[in-house]
């Protein structure tokens, strides 16, 4: 375990053998009904979202979906959402708030899409709106990074009361390749950049960015999903104890304390 480098984790996080966002939905929920569209422009297939039951508890679930095969990956834009994806997610979060059910997000993205249409339709604005709205959403939010947690594109679904990562998931402000090409004009030094960026689950836990690392024992098997579901259910029981004001206060403090600076 200790010989695993940061870049090994990056490769593991990107491996196409990992369960996809939709696998978590089917593995954890029953009676799932997918909800499409942002009610403004279109439906972004890079984000799968809807409602379902976790045991007897209704939940809203939002998952970034990379796609299983070449055709699906193209259709889902390799899990790189457009602004309408973030807006669909926000629409469903507000719906969850109205019906007082928790929101569970599964994040697996190299990042929000960088393209003409994404800029034209306000990628920055869409993510900003999610950060703004999620910080005041009056129902519990749990986000699990299950593969790649790529920068703002991941954070747009991760302003949550609890943020967990799978053992081999990564969470980074920039891809190690992008970082290496900016720093050293050499993307092949991604290995070194991955080390410096402190992007592994262990790093995130040490830095206080996440609360928990979920083991990948039997990854993708029914027992794995059962374990993840049990963790979520237990945590929701804890969060049920809080008043809305306490929940929001704790969520505020969760992010408020993040930062290391000199004074």
């Amino acid at each position, binding site marked *: 375990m200790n010989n695993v480098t940061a870049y090994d984790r990056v490769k593991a996080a990107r491996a196409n053998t990992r369960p996809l966002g939709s696998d978590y939905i089917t593995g954890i929920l029953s009676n799932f009904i997918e909800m499409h569209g942002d009610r403004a422009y279109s439906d972004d297939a890079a984000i799968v979202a809807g409602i379902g039951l976790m045991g007897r508890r209704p939940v809203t679930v939002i998952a970034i979906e990379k796609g299983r095969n070449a055709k699906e990956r193209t259709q889902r834009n390799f899990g790189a959402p457009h602004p309408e994806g973030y807006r669909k997610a926000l629409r469903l979060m507000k719906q969850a708030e109205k019906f007082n059910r928790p929101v569970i997000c599964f994040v697996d993205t190299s990042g*929000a899409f*960088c*393209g*003409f249409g*994404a*800029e*034209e*339709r*306000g*990628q*920055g*604005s869409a*993510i*900003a*709106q999610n*950060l*703004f*709205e999620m*910080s*005041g959403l009056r129902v519990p939010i749990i986000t699990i990074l299950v593969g790649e947690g790529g*920068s*703002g594109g991941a*954070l*747009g679904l*991760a*302003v949550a009361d609890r943020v967990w990562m799978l053992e081999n998931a990564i*969470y*980074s*402000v*920039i891809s190690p390749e992008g*970082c290496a090409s*900016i*720093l050293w004009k050499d993307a092949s030094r991604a290995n*070194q950049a991955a080390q*410096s*960026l*402190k*992007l592994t689950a262990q*790093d*995130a836990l040490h*830095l206080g*960015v996440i609360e928990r690392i979920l083991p990948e024992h039997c990854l993708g098997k029914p027992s794995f999903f059962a374990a993840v579901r049990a963790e979520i259910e237990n945590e929701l029981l804890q969060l049920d104890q809080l008043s809305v004001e306490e929940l929001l206060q704790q*969520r*505020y403090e969760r*992010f*408020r304390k*993040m*930062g*290391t*600076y*000199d*004074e």
Partner: protein
Amino acid sequence: MAFIQFKHKPKNELEYGGRQAALQGDENEPTEMCPNCHKEVPISYLSANAHVCPCGYHFRISGRRRLRLVVDGGSFEELDQNVVARDALKFPGYEKKLAVARDVSDEPEAVICGKAFIDGNECYLFIMESAFMMASMGSAVGEKITRLFEYALRDGLPVVGFTVSGGARMQEGIISLMQMAKTSAAIRRHSDAGLLYCAVLTDPTTGGVTASFAMEGDVILAEPGALIGFAGPRVIEQTTRKRLPKGFQRAEFLLEHGFVDAIVERSKMRSTVAQILEIHTNARGGEAHE
């Protein structure tokens, strides 16, 4: 009272306001080349005209200069100047970059925060400094901006913020990303109290700053020609392998697509911001908003 001025493009040299006369200075006078019209513009002309070229191009200016252009003389009370970056991750080359940035910008960090009056309107104000690592957002920047909104919430005052940024500061890793959430949460609280936040986007505003506090203003203004986007144009060209059209991600493009309220020339920025502050002071039937 004038309406907010949208960008007005001069149609001829007369409308430029005596461009020939302005450009015929002392031959020995230092000049600066305008990246837009490629003419040499005397520094004295720029100094007297808020660093706007006769052709309308808005030169990038330092945070301090912007401060002088915007606030009432002597009214600025700087806050949290001692909050500065720390190389918590021992990131390669970061200490050195910080030292250079401090030297080049003559600022301790990439944002200047404080309390000020703008045409008599009291507000909290932040101005980002591009000469400091392209005003990237690390923990110190996030902390200073978060505190500013907390002070403003405590005092029931509006916030005016001038953004310029290359995005999150990657040398601080994931913690820099978290500053986006931290600042957004503070803005949300300030907003929930019914208080105004006016963001002014200047050239260039990109990345994590665009995807957080730059786009969270109740009112979002932009300077003419400012580059504003999530991904930088180079990244988009690399990703899509397509050439981007002229004017893409410029303030005018964002206005057209509905992401900024108005484009305001630098010479009218102070009066426009003051007007917006004033309108919000007199909410609820003329009673001061307490």
